[in-house]
């Protein structure tokens, strides 16, 4: 592998890792703060991608579709929290696993009923449709760089939100001691609703951003769910920072696994996970 190719592969790894972070960040928030294990997280990614498809065909513009899609996803999250998840806080994890497993089936079939089972493409906005030449044969699509940039901005935004704002302070407090926060007069129910809706919106946003490069297709949620789990396990439950590091580690493991040991490509990610667990059973950045 020459240096140019190596650097391009590094870029591939970073770009893939950042997108994974976007999906996993919502999952780790909901895990860490609300103590909810949400298998339907991949479904929210899928819903986001399909929203991008439907809204883009209606409005003719992906950016407009995303602008509409984020509040819709947030509202969906808030509604689900009020209807279903609110019953789960005092249940054990097993019941959370089951209920959200049931939701996966429901969302997948609703998707099939509403949009059908065909593969659809989503157009890249004209503004970002160019490619930058990297070598004499290879160019890099601008849109992929845009995705990476959005992910970086969101990572910083989440950090600021959690560390520097009043909402973030309540979230941090809520994840440590639910009763205490309530005693301080903070409306914990509303706080949880916001956190859950935020998690859903993050997953849906990842789906919407990824739609133009991945196409939208049945079963697309399941593929990101497991990898998000691995990221949360490696990074440490509830740690957004850990999720970022873990997502990048996975991006590199996957990309270079494919290039260096193609016959073990699918396994590389899990070998990394096993190694981390052996070293730190509760993830790299386990808090508290």
């Amino acid at each position, binding site marked *: 592998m020459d240096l140019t190719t190596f650097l391009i592969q590094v870029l591939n790894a970073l770009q893939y890792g950042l997108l994974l972070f976007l999906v996993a960040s919502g999952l780790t928030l909901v895990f860490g703060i609300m103590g909810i294990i949400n298998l339907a997280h991949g479904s929210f990614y899928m819903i986001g991608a399909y929203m991008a498809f439907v809204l883009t065909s209606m409005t003719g513009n992906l950016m407009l579709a995303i602008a509409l899609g984020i509040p819709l996803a947030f509202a969906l999250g808030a509604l689900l929290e009020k209807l279903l998840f609110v019953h789960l806080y005092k249940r054990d994890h097993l019941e959370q696993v089951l209920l959200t497993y049931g939701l996966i089936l429901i969302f997948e079939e609703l998707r099939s009923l509403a949009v059908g*089972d065909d593969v659809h*493409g989503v157009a890249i906005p004209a503004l970002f449709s160019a490619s930058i030449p990297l070598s004499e*044969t290879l160019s890099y699509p601008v849109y992929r760089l845009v995705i990476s940039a959005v992910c970086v901005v969101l990572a910083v935004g989440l950090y600021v939100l959690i560390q520097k704002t009043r909402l973030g302070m309540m979230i941090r407090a809520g994840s440590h001691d639910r009763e205490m926060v309530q005693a301080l007069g903070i409306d914990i129910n509303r706080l949880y609703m916001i956190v859950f809706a935020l998690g859903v919106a993050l997953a849906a946003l990842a789906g919407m951003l990824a739609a133009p490069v991945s196409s939208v297709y049945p079963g697309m949620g399941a593929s990101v769910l497991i990898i998000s789990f691995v990221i949360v396990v490696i990074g440490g439950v509830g740690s957004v920072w850990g999720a970022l590091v873990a997502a990048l580690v996975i991006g590199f493991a996957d*990309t270079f696994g494919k290039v260096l040991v193609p016959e073990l490509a699918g396994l590389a990610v899990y070998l990394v996970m096993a190694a981390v667990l052996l070293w730190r059973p509760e993830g790299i950045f386990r808090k508290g």
Partner: protein
Amino acid sequence: MRKDLQARRAFVRTMVAVAMASLVPLGAAQAADPVKVGLMLPATGTFAALGTAISNAFRLYVEEQGGTLAGREIQYATVDDESDPAKATENANRLVVRDRVDVLVGTVHSGVALAMARVARQRDTLFIVPNAGAGDLTGSLCAPNLFRTSFTNWQPAYAMGQAALERGAKSAVTLTWNYAAGQEAVKGFAQAFEAGGGKVVRELALPFPNVEFQAYLTEIASLKPDAVYVFFAGAGAAKFVRDYAAAGLKDSIPLYSSGFLTDGTLEAMGGAGEGLITALHYADGLDNARDQAFREKYQAKYGIAPDVYAVQGYDAAQLLHVGLEAVGGDVRKKAEMRAAMRAATIDSPRGAFTLSAAHNPVQDIYLRRAEGNQNLVIGIAAEKLADPAEGCNM
């Protein structure tokens, strides 16, 4: 509504109660009874549209004949195979053992079709494959009761290998999902390409159905071959072609493939597929009256244009018709019926074809170019191409 509904409901009640059920096996088929056709096709999941096309076209042919073939009414039993090999044996048994169908027709997914072949062989039930391209079906698993009206993965790939040479390529990189269909296709391509003096410089493969292609595109760009041959279908195909174009490779390194890359996926490629050259046993814009008539009727009845899968389903019904005519509708005369089917010439919308000794079509493979949402024929990549049928001793 399916005929067996009541029996199954009864069964389910029984199971839930963990009590006994009494299900009387259906009596042996009489000559005056309808011929039972078991359609085992995907109705849900990724391949749902393909299954629907096959089923639609099969029924269309039977209706054109007035709902009977050789004087026997045709009755259908259907199962959604979900393209799930894990459920394939059980689903095939639903039709073959429970419903006692006279002929089993299916399916899209090769793994499911392989399981069906085993069930059909055990029971010596006539089995017609209207899509699945696994070489083994008319290779090591070939059998007197097994016929195919579609293709082998090897066929279009081999033709594409020849065509790539003719179009001036000397070196190629191949990329496919690492599963049987992809491996067979790459093997076919490499065989033809290297026999004509070309060189496959690297065979890349990624796990099915992984769609993160960026690392491989980078590899391809650094290898700089004259051509790239890929085997993808469905969602993966759409994503690959988009990524290939976005990486700027489409303009510098020609992309060749078996036709499944661009069948039913051009819309999802959003223009990135324009101009792609592929090889397949069917194409848009064929100059043949049979095809035009078929397209008109199909469009009129179902409201969408037929595709290669519809053609294969239509021909499965035609092949069954030939067999039934030869025995006057008496499906018990198995040997005679199969001999007639083996010798048949099918007047297909794709152009007439015959069957090889292994019961696979000997057919023209067209070279096509993608324009808009169509794969227009631009020539014939290989004439009357027969699969080598490795491992078949029949």
